[in-house]
């Protein structure tokens, strides 16, 4: 067997080093958060140089958070809002995207450009008119008020349009020849073929809704309707900014995202189109 020399190993080492640096930037903050949440009150969280591994790890901070705040209510509020928003976004965005991808109609390109343009407007600009609209519709302090802004996003439509474009036209035409209506083709043929994209959009939407702070902050003022980000924010004020508790609350709110990703990641696996068409 050929002995590995420095020349052949060096590129590999550099590659791993690059990966480690990226990892440090991506996972690092989360590990720091986790470490802070597990540190006891006796331990200095601002010690220099920083200590990542807690001296005596404890779950006390988590129990204190749960005792002092209705975090399970926040969790269920967040879960309900996220579930509704994700489901609606998947349904409505893909429903809107299908004709944009596949049904020729007058003004389709213009509509698509308008849609793309709307993605470039920051939410902060839209916040006041959307807020006024929500108030007029009586959506303040309602779940619907939290869900609606996320129910059909321009990004979702754009993303699903691109996914539908990747499905071979012949499959759809075969269904048309089979006498299947457009709506049924969308539901029974197209959607199953873009499952990986649906899963990806689900993750993106879930993260966006789950982590949304600004909109819930302005539309909700009843603590019973608070979502997790509002709950975590409340910790900061209630406990005179005890970072251990804030960190514990943040970790508490991140876990569902990790679980959601774990359950949906299998849909990312390519190969859904295998055997569909040839040539």
């Amino acid at each position, binding site marked *: 067997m050929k002995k590995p020399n420095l020349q052949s190993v060096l590129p590999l080492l550099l590659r791993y080093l690059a990966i480690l640096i990226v990892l440090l930037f991506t996972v690092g903050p989360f590990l720091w958060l986790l470490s802070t949440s597990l540190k006891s009150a006796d331990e200095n969280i601002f010690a220099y140089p920083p200590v990542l591994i807690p001296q005596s790890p404890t779950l006390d901070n988590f129990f204190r958070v749960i005792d002092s705040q209705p975090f399970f209510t926040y969790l269920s509020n967040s879960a309900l809002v996220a579930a509704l928003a994700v489901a609606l976004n998947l349904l409505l965005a893909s429903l809107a995207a299908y004709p944009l991808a596949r049904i020729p109609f007058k003004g389709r390109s213009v509509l698509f450009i308008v849609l793309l343009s709307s993605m470039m407007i920051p939410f902060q600009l839209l916040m006041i008119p959307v807020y006024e609209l929500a108030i007029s519709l009586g959506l303040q302090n309602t779940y619907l008020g939290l869900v609606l802004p996320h129910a059909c996003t321009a990004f979702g439509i754009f993303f699903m349009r691109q996914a539908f474009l990747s499905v*071979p036209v*012949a*499959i759809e*035409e*075969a*269904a*048309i*020849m*089979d*006498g*299947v*209506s457009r709506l*049924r083709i969308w539901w*029974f*043929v197209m959607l*199953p*073929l873009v499952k990986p994209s649906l899963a990806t959009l689900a993750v993106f939407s879930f993260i966006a809704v789950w982590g949304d702070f600004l909109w819930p902050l302005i539309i909700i003022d009843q603590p019973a309707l608070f979502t997790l980000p509002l709950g975590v924010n409340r910790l900061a004020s209630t406990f005179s900014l005890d970072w251990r508790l804030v960190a514990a609350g943040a970790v508490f709110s991140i876990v569902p995202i990790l679980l959601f990703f774990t359950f949906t990641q299998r849909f990312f696996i390519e*190969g*859904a*189109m*295998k*055997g*569909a*068409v*040839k*040539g």
Partner: protein
Amino acid sequence: MSALTLRGVTKKFGKTETIHGMDLDINAGEFVVFVGPSGCGKSTLLRMIAGLDEVTAGAITIGGGDITTKPPSERKVAMVFQSYALYPHMTVAENLSFGMRMRGVAKDVIAQKVRMAVEMLRLVPYLDRKPGALSGGQCQRVAIGRALVQEPDVFLFDEPLSNLDAELRLKTRVEIAALHKRLGKTMVYVTHDQVEAMTLADKIVVLRDGVIEQVGKPLDLYNAPANLFVAGFIGSPAMNFLASESFSGDVLQGSLQGYARDSRVKTIGIRPEHLVISADGPIVGVVTAIERLGTTSYVYFEKKGQSLCAQVADALELAVGNIVQFHVADKHVHGFDAAGLRIGNF
């Protein structure tokens, strides 16, 4: 069984006209093959019959009824796609029954039709498999089965064998021919492979640039091509063409004398298989390449700067650089006028 007619069928994409007022009669139960080079409009024509592309002008009728503006599902046509176009997330059984299930056909009727199709196409062992677990040939059989269960008046095939390897192509070709014989339905088949056209068709339609060049039985097209294009397209290797200017004096001997007497003839055509090696043959050339296929050989030779091909049974003694002489029977020499139209044989 239903006859299919096209009357003045025209197709425009924007301002570009791709099909120029086509007229065609296809008899009930006939197997018609559209052939032509890429971009000639054969697939567009098929898609217009299927209803997947709109007809810009003209009319299409099936069984006497005008279907020009009807949606595909109301035309009683079924199409087999080049790419199979199977639903990848469904099993073979689901692929076959999907359309019927969506249309609300009774379960027992679906089961009976699916059974009939899978038995006919020998798909019984694969009913629970998804397309990804099938070979190309099996996929194409499923695609044919999906057309079969629709019980259409007209079957449309869009280059169905293009993605199969040579062996499977031959096998599936025979199966399609057998299927036509068994069902007796009208079938329209698009291909650029003239072997498929010659072997399958009752009638061949040769297309070029959105115009029908010739319609006829396969051997009629082979023996009496209407023009230079059809003569060159039908037959493999292609017919040799010799321009009148290059065919002077020494070459015009014996059997080719008839050509010299007809001033209208500007080009003569000779099929490679009609060139016979002969010691005193009038066509003399230098061998440039030889392709030995076993049962036959293609001898490529050059005559006055023109490259010609001869199909000979035995080319063992020939080598590149040899001078060869060929003879051709009068009846196998085709004459074409200045416009490229066939004048006749000599």
